[in-house]
């Protein structure tokens, strides 16, 4: 069977494990964090199957992108003399990788204010991507935050602190 996998690392890997462990109610939040930290030290990259079998955990399903990119118009035509590959299972089309630098958080905060930044962050609906954006832009957000709304708020606050720090340093 052909495997189609998606690589997770860093913040997105942590988020995956957190969701996975939440389904085990016997673990306290502290224990979950401890295990996630341990796994982060031990595992550099996680490859997640895109096509999930029945019975997989809820968390694993959540980690799969829910908005596949349209492909119909951009799919290249197959040459006529090439036989279609038999028995290849249908797989979900790959989504374009999220660019964590697509939004300059600090610039948006300073030019558009809090509301302007929040508006721009609304366009990112995945918690993994929001966490990735925060990490790559060196904005500190709480490890316990999971909902996109919470993460957006935390990103705005971190950006405000960044700006305040710079103003303080210049005074």
């Amino acid at each position: 069977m052909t495997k189609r996998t998606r690589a997770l690392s860093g913040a997105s890997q942590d988020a995956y494990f957190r969701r996975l462990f939440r389904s085990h109610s016997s673990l306290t939040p502290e224990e979950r964090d401890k295990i996630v930290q341990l796994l982060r030290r031990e595992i550099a990259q996680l490859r997640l199957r895109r096509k999930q079998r029945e019975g997989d955990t809820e968390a694993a399903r959540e980690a799969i992108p829910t908005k596949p990119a349209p492909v119909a118009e951009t799919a290249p035509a197959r040459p006529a003399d090439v036989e279609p590959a038999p028995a290849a299972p249908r797989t979900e089309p790959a989504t374009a990788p999220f660019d964590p630098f697509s939004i300059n958080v600090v610039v948006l905060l300073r030019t558009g204010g809090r509301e302007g930044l929040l508006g721009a962050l609304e366009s990112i609906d995945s918690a993994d991507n929001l966490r990735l954006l925060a990490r790559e832009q060196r904005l500190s957000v709480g490890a316990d935050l999971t909902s996109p709304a919470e993460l957006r708020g935390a990103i705005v606050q971190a950006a405000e602190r960044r700006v305040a720090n710079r103003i303080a340093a210049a005074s």
Partner: protein
Amino acid sequence: MTQFIAVSNRKGGVGKSTIAVMLANATAAWSQRRVLLIDLDTQCNASLMLVGGEAWERANRAGHTVADYFYDRFEKVAEDESAYVLNNVGDVAHARTAPGRVSLLPGSQRLEDIQGELLLKHSKKDLHADAVAVQVRTRMKNMLKHFGMDFDVVILDCPPGLSFAALAALALADHVLVPFRPDFVSQFAMDRAAMLIERVETAEQLAGIPIAERRYSCLPNCLKGDGHERLLIEQLALDHPVLKTRLPMLDSIARAFDWDETRKTMQEKYADALPHLRSLHDEIFRVPELLAKSA
């Protein structure tokens, strides 16, 4: 009219000397102007890049460095200072038609000590230390200005930190080029440098000066081409004039640090960095204050 360009950043390791030498070579080669580089950095890297270790050591022994110049001539009226200057330096072959070449007032490791000595020498009981410091800096500025008589462009390679020599250079410069590596602390360094150059005390006062009217410009250097660098440059550009030129981290620039006796063309010396250097040269000499001076 002579154009004074300071290459400065209080932060070390941002490429000041390398850029000062590149700009000196480019100005001599492409603008056909008489260029003097004054090495105010006690590391003397620009001097070593332009004349090599042996010639720099000879200048030191002969007492022909910027430190000697300040010390020997501090209390004298302006006279011929050419003895301190090494002409036709560097390993770039410029056109033989004068005056397109580079000269150097070599740096000295003793410059910091000499600044202290000058301060002590001119201290008076009835004069506050700050007032003496201002007098010393002002005199140093005027001594640097004196070289404008013989050159079209004077490039002042400033040391990191804020020595008297650095402050004198900043006060004299028509334009200050501030190279920086885009990282988090560079923003702080740039904010402080900007206030110093524009002679204001607060960020609010600095913000009151339109970016287009600032006396300095920032040059992103040593770029690796990642997204985080781009973000920081965009953030910096909200508060400071940032040149369009971007200097990537290139082997050809790192190699240009090495001096050797074989003369070479600009193309041979700077190789794939040449378009970036051309862009820097063109952009620098288009800045309003320099344009006004050359008009």
